[in-house]
C-alpha cells in the first residue's frame, strides 16, 4: 500500500501531520498522556507563557454555552522560566515538537519571553496578540500594526525559529492584519482566537464570569473561524493555521480545504481528551478512503 505523506511545513518547521493542539486547551501536554499518544500529534502548543508567573482572573472563569464555552482564565501561567526548567524537560521525551504560545503586556515583554525561549527545545513561538481576557496587551494590540511590527521584528532578532502570529477575530479587518504580519516577517499566522462573549446570571443580575467578558470557543464559532481562515489564506502567502471549533476530522478537513496548512484542536480536548489523536487518525482514514496520498492535495482546494 502506498504510504501517506501527511507532512506540512510552518516556515522552516516540518510537522509530521497538520494536527496541533490549541494553546490553553491542552495544558502542557502531559495532562493528556494517558488519553492519547502524544507522539502521534503534529505539534503541541502549550498554554500561553508570560515573563513572570501570572495568577489569572478570579473565578468564575469559564461557563458553558450552546455549542461551546466562554472562558476568562486571564492567562494564569507558571512563567517562562518555570516552563523551561520544569515542563520542557518532560516534554522532551516525546518526538512531537512543542510550540510556545507567548504573551506580554508590551512589545518588550513579548520579545523578552521569546528571548528566554531562544536556546531551548521549543520549535516555534505562537504570539498571542489577541487574548480578550487581560487588561493590558492581548486584544488591544490585535489591530495595532505599529506594535505588531515591533513585536515581530523584535522577536525575529532574538529567536531564530518560526514566529506565528495568532490573529483576533474581534476585528473587521483580519485580512489586513494578516497581510501586515506577513509583511513584517511573520512565518505563519494562526486564526482564530476566541470571540468576545458574555453570559449573565439573571437571578443575580451579574455577569457569570468575574471578568465580565470572556472568549467564546467551540463549535459555536466554527463557521466564523472557517470564513476567516478562508479569507486570510487568500490574502497571504505564508501558512495559515486554522483554529475554531474543530471537533473531529471532518471539521479539520473543512479548514484544510478552506486554505489552512495545519489546524489546532482546542475546546474539543475538554469534551474528549483523545480528540486531537482522533483527528489525526480520521484524516488518515479519509485520505486512504479517497486515495489521496498527500495531505497537500487537500490544502486550499476549495472550488468556488
Amino acid at each position, binding site marked *: 500500500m502506498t504510504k501517506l505523506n501527511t507532512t506540512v511545513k510552518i516556515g522552516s518547521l516540518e510537522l509530521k501531520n497538520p494536527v496541533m493542539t490549541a494553546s490553553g486547551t491542552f495544558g502542557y501536554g502531559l495532562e493528556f498522556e494517558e488519553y492519547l499518544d502524544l507522539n502521534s500529534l503534529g505539534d503541541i502548543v502549550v498554554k500561553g507563557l508570560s515573563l513572570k508567573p501570572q495568577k489569572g482572573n478570579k*473565578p468564575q*472563569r*469559564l461557563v*458553558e454555552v450552546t455549542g461551546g464555552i466562554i472562558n476568562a482564565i486571564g492567562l494564569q501561567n507558571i512563567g517562562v522560566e518555570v516552563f523551561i526548567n520544569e515542563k520542557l524537560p518532560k516534554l522532551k521525551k516525546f518526538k512531537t515538537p512543542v510550540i510556545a504560545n507567548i504573551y506580554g503586556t508590551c512589545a518588550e515583554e513579548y520579545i523578552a519571553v521569546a528571548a528566554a525561549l531562544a536556546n531551548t527545545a521549543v520549535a516555534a513561538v505562537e504570539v498571542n496578540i489577541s487574548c480578550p481576557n487581560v487588561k493590558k496587551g492581548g486584544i488591544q494590540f490585535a489591530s495595532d500594526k505599529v506594535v505588531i511590527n515591533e513585536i515581530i521584528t523584535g522577536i525575529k532578532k532574538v529567536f531564530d525559529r518560526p514566529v506565528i502570529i495568532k490573529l483576533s477575530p474581534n476585528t473587521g479587518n483580519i485580512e489586513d492584519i494578516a497581510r501586515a504580519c506577513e509583511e513584517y516577517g511573520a512565518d505563519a499566522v494562526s486564526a482564530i482566537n476566541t470571540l468576545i462573549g458574555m453570559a449573565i446570571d439573571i437571578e443575580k443580575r451579574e455577569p457569570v464570569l468575574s471578568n465580565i467578558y470572556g472568549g467564546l470557543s467551540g*463549535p459555536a464559532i466554527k463557521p466564523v473561524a472557517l470564513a476567516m481562515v478562508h479569507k486570510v489564506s487568500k490574502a497571504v502567502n505564508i501558512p495559515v493555521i486554522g483554529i475554531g471549533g474543530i*471537533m473531529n476530522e471532518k471539521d479539520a478537513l473543512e479548514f484544510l480545504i478552506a486554505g489552512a496548512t495545519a489546524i489546532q484542536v482546542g475546546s474539543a480536548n475538554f*469534551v*474528549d481528551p483523545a480528540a486531537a489523536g482522533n483527528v489525526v487518525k480520521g484524516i488518515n482514514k479519509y485520505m486512504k478512503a479517497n486515495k489521496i496520498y498527500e495531505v497537500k492535495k487537500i490544502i486550499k482546494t476549495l472550488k468556488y
Partner: protein
Amino acid sequence: MYYDSIVTENKEIASAIWHLKLKTKKTLKAKPGQFINLRVSETLVPFLRKPFSIFDATANTVEVIYKVTGEGTKLLSGKKKGEALNFLGPLGNTYPEVPKGFKKVILVGGGTGIASLHFLAKKLKKKGIKVIQGARNKSCVIHKKKFEEYQGVIATEDGSCGTKGFVTEILKTQLKDNTLIYACGPEQMLFAIQKLAGTKKNVKVLGAFEAYMGCGLGACLSCVIEVKTPKGTENVRVCKEGPVFDVEKIVFSGPRGN
C-alpha cells in the same frame, strides 16, 4: 482513564436527586473524594462533561448521586438502564487518612455533598465515625437508611427531618477538641465548619470543594481556588490538586466566587 460504561440503574431517590449506577468492563480503582467527569449527551449540547463525586465504587461499578439543576443533569435523568455513558476518571485526590492525634472523626455533608462522604464512611467504617447530613427539607434527604449504619444524623433547614437548622447546629453539640472533620458541600458550609473548628483545640477540617470545571484534567485552569502560601496566595486547580483541601488553607472567595 477513559471508560465506556453502561447504566444499570438511574432513579430518583429524593426530590430532584437521582442515584446513578454504572458498570464498566475495564476495571477501575476509585478512592473517596474522587470524581468522574461524565458525558451526558451524544450531541454537542451540553458541550462539557459534568463532574460528579463518587458515591460508591468497586472494580467494575461506579455510583453517583446527582441533583437535577440544569440541562445536563436533566438529560442525565432521562438515561435508561442499558444506555451507554462515557466517563473520565477517577479524577482528583482523595480524603487523606486520619492523621495521628485525632480522637474523633465526623463527616459532614450538605446536599449532594454527602455522596463522597458515603464512600469515605464505607472505607472508614471500622474506625467509629459519625455522619451529619444537611438537607433543605425532608424530601431532599439522601439515603437516610444507608447512613444510619454510620451513626447518621440529619439537619434540615425547615426541621422537617432531624434537627432544625444547618449542619453546624448539630456539629456544635458534637464538636470536641482533637476532632477531624471531613466535609463536603457548599463553600459557605465548609467555611462555617472551619469557623466552628476554631472554637476548639486541634480540630482539622478536610473539605471537598466544587468549582466550575472545563476539563477536569488540569489543563484549562477554570477550576482554581485560592490557597494560602507562605508568600501570599496562589490559584490551584480543584480538579488536580483538589477537590479535597485543608479548609484552613483556602481563601474564602465570598459571594462572587462559586
